């Protein structure tokens, strides 16, 4: 695919972002090919969503529908949700159980590993019709993706060859991953799905940009959950594609810095204090928001934990699929705490609704002005880990890697 001459990344490099990347159909198609179908590990499921043989989950990698299935041996397989015969998307339920996979159209039947095991009328009817004698079902199974399961989290890839998962995450990201997924059994608390009318990259930019949090999110600031002067840091892997915003409780004092936070309302107090009574659960940090290339955000905001999976729906929209979870050994109090704090997140979240609203406004600003250019100079013009959050360094890291993959 050729990139139009007009599509030259600005000379200032990653301190700038050209707005055509958010709306150009050619760029979008190239992203599907190189990023989502390329050598990347995409999040598809939590293993606990499909605990028994035959359990399946329907999901997407990029725009492509896939199914995650547990087979009779207990192994997890991921294959395309597309019949090998005529392309029917056979699985139409978010979650379910089936002994075998049967396409509703001509009833081609597959086992739970994706092998074609049944073709009705293969030998014809009354000696008429039927498949050619040399038709071999072995050649017509479902396309199976590479799969990796780490501590109960399932990733898959369309690429035939790619780095082992641990190398893909890199040491520092793996450590953060294992902090939440430490081998304990996960318990799904529920789902939330929203269609955000913005380019998928704006979601990553949002979670890779810690400096907006103390400005946009009046709620967070007002109730002391996140402040620009909290001890915090930004961390990335060696490529810049993954990132994490980390903060923890320190001693904040009211300073002049607050004058910059339109947000700050000294007088706010929740009427229902129970909603926000976080307890220390993990070592060191109170908030870790991890972004994993190409489709996952792992949210640990105090005691509310969630996977946020990005599913692009054209250049101007994406689905954000939230899976809120806790641990099977949570006591009733912790479970309730997680459900209460979930009010911060999701489509109605005290915090995250600000983000979905602002992403729509972003799209409405960048799409009509594809030739305009955004500025990302907070905290410098390059990217590296930082011991603070007054920076756009993690977004710059993301675009450094993005440009390499996209050859832009």
């Amino acid at each position, binding site marked *: 695919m050729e990139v139009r001459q007009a599509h030259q990344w600005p000379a200032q490099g990653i301190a700038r972002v050209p707005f055509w990347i958010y709306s150009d159909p050619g760029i979008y198609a190239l992203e599907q090919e190189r990023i989502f179908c390329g050598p990347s590990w995409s999040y598809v499921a939590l293993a606990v969503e499909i605990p028994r043989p035959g359990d399946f989950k329907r999901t997407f990698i990029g725009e492509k529908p896939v199914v995650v299935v547990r087979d009779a041996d207990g192994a997890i397989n991921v294959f395309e949700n597309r019949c090998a015969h005529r392309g029917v998307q056979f699985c139409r339920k978010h979650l379910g159980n089936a002994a075998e996979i049967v396409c509703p159209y001509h009833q081609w039947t597959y086992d739970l590993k994706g092998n074609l095991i049944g073709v009705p009328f293969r030998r014809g009817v009354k000696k008429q019709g039927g498949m050619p004698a040399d038709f071999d079902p072995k050649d017509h199974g479902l396309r199976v993706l590479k799969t990796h399961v780490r501590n109960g989290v399932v990733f898959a890839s369309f690429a035939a060859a790619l780095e082992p998962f641990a190398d893909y995450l890199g040491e520092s990201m793996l450590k953060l991953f294992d902090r939440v997924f430490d081998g304990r059994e996960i318990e799904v*608390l529920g789902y*939330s799905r929203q269609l955000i009318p913005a380019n998928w990259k704006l979601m990553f930019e949002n979670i890779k940009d810690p400096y907006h949090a103390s400005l946009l999110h*009046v709620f967070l600031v007002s109730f002391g959950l996140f402040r620009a002067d909290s001890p915090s840091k930004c961390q990335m892997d060696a490529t810049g594609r993954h990132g994490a915003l980390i903060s923890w409780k320190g001693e904040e004092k009211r300073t002049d810095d607050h004058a910059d936070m339109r947000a700050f309302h000294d007088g*706010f107090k929740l*009427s*229902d204090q129970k909603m926000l009574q976080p307890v220390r659960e993990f070592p060191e940090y109170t908030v870790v928001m991890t972004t994993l290339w190409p489709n996952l955000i792992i949210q640990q905001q105090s005691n509310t934990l969630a996977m946020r999976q990005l599913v692009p729906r054209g250049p101007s929209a994406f689905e954000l699929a939230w899976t809120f979870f806790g641990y099977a050994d949570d006591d009733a109090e912790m479970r309730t705490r997680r*459900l209460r704090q979930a009010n911060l997140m999701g489509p109605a979240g005290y915090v995250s*609704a600000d983000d979905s*609203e602002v992403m729509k406004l972003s799209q409405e600003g960048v799409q009509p002005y594809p030739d305009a250019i955004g500025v990302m100079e907070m905290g410098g013009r390059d990217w590296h880990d930082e011991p603070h959050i007054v920076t756009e360094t993690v977004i710059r890291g993301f675009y450094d890697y993005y440009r390499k993959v996209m050859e832009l």
Partner: protein
Amino acid sequence: MAAAERYLQMNARELRLELEERYAAYSACLDEERFEDWPAFFTDDCIYKIIPRENVERGLPLATWFCEGRAGLLDRVVAIRKTMMYAPRYVRRLVTGLRIVGWEGETLAVRANYLALETLLDEPTRIFNCGEYRDRLAVVGGELRFREKLCVFDSLLVPNSVIFPL
């Protein structure tokens, strides 16, 4: 108690009329964005949830919006007025198919379908959220108030954000 007695003794037709009035007042309060008046429709110990139907069907507890007690409702009102950033919108709620399930002691179980239409700038009005109210009402201060209101919604893929109550 006397007030509860009055409702308990109503025949189905009278009770339905009372409820229709009540639900119409509730919708009007929200449609007109009189959010400060919203908590008064609930009892002090109420539960209010907007919850995806798929979670209810799977027995999963997560709600999209979860308020406990009138205090929880008040916090949402403060957020709508003071803390949350959102584009201007109109939301209009249509409530229909009201069904009286019956009294459980002094609590009245009611179900109704609702449809919430959302109008944003530069966009035609769209269906925002469609679902079923699963409510329990109690008589407090001489009137029926929601002790529990569950908005169980079919519209699993939420168009962007839920800012106002349903």
